[in-house]
């Protein structure tokens, strides 16, 4: 006698497809740089330094920064509206803990869906988790910019370290914002 059982899941995490990223600008000059930060550790110092660096090297015109009200939630609706009305390119993060990294990845993907080129900054320790989020929305190969050890995953950095990290990742962030893949 056979046994028939029911699948308890909501289906494969890889079942979505067809996600389309936002069109990329030719260069960063004149763009408004959006920072969607989750406030993790000292990552805001890095994001501020990243803007300062790219403003100096690439001629960014302005910046808008939203610090979310908790590390692993979407921004408040009014902050989201203000952000997408202003930013023309964006970074999200820090992807440094389990829930905040995956939510920051979702922020980047939501910004792409809203037509804003974006990139999520993620520590290498959290790459499998953010990759799961990308698979879930149908964009498994969505590029990210990573930070590696010896830097602490959760953004517990010195100010000097945070500023140095900004300089280190700036070329990858530029490349990612200008190239869709």
């Amino acid at each position, binding site marked *: 006698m056979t*046994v*028939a*059982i*029911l699948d308890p899941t909501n289906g494969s995490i890889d079942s979505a497809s067809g996600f389309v990223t936002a069109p990329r600008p030719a260069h960063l000059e004149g763009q408004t740089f959006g920072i969607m930060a989750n406030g993790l550790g000292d990552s805001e110092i890095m994001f501020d330094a990243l803007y300062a660096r790219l403003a100096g090297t690439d001629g960014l015109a302005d910046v808008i920064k939203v610090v979310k009200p908790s590390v692993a939630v979407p921004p408040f609706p009014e902050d989201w509206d203000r952000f997408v009305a202003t930013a023309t390119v964006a970074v999200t993060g820090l992807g440094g803990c389990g829930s905040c990294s995956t939510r920051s990845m979702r922020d980047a993907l939501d910004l792409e869906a809203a037509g804003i080129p974006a990139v999520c900054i993620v520590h290498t320790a959290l790459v499998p988790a953010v990759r799961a*989020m990308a698979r879930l929305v149908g964009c498994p190969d969505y590029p990210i910019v990573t930070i590696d050890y010896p830097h602490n995953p959760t953004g517990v950095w010195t100010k000097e370290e945070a500023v140095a990290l900004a300089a280190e990742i700036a070329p990858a962030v530029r490349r990612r914002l200008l190239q869709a893949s």
Partner: protein
Amino acid sequence: MTLATPNHVFETADEALEACFELGWTDGLPVVPATVEAVAAMLAAGGLNPDDVLGTVPTRNVTVTAEKAAINAVMAGCLPEYFPVVVAAVRAHLQVKANSHSTTATLAGAAHAVIVNGPVRQLIGVECGQACFGPGFRANATIGRALRLVIRNVCRAVPGELDRASFSWPLRYSFCFGENEEASEWTPLHVQLGYQQNDSVVTIQSVMRFIAVTDFEPEAEKILDAIWEQARHAGLQRDEWAGDGRSLVVVIGTEHHLRLLDQGWTKERIQQYLWPKMTADTGGKYDNKLHLADPANIMIVAAGGPGIAQSWLLVPHLAIPTHERVVFPDDEASAAGTTP
């Protein structure tokens, strides 16, 4: 009853069980095969249609239906009469401020306490007394496990994917207990929250830290002092999104309960005593302010058995405790998801 979920057919029950492991459908322990008949019985006991929606996790594009909750309740080993409690637990966990994504993906590996109040405890045998945190009691063990299997299987909190706990912890297998309302005249938690005495109510508290307070002092104030001192060791930071709802659950054990009763302490008086001490400014690395907006954010629950003079603190993750009334099929006056 027509279900949306397709069948997987196996030659034997053993093969079906092994397939559940291979397909990643279990918490690492054996599960009960979820047959159509068993799932239909579960849904009938809850008075629900398969496609009734219990809640969502927007960050993960997840919708949890009654059908999927019932499948996981069967797998967890629940009896059909437990299902109304499972449904209330799932609904409470999926309320926005329960912050499902954050509390189930976190590095910290937060667990979820299912606290049951009201007549349903005795109706289905939810243990409130000795060893109530488990193991040993089917209702406690399987209701807590059913919520965890829903979190894993339906809400996609799979280790290595969207469950990113560095260690995780054993409370995540199952953590369900009832309040020992019969032990004294203390106001039960659900009545303090505004529900009726005869309502059955589930409270979900995310648990970031689970701290024992063992203190053999005979004086009530000294017991309470031990509680707030331990709580201040952990501290509780303000979270803008969670706002003023974030709460500490204090489970008062029997020995402490008896001493407090003997000396005339009510829950309300305990809350008033603890709150200013818990919320005083931080005094050092191991003396941290708890950001609790009001004395009512210290939720007192009586439980446990006699013996050791012990109480427990359930310190939350980035969520507020959420509550749902247990709705039975013949409960015409009730409406799912109501709050007082």
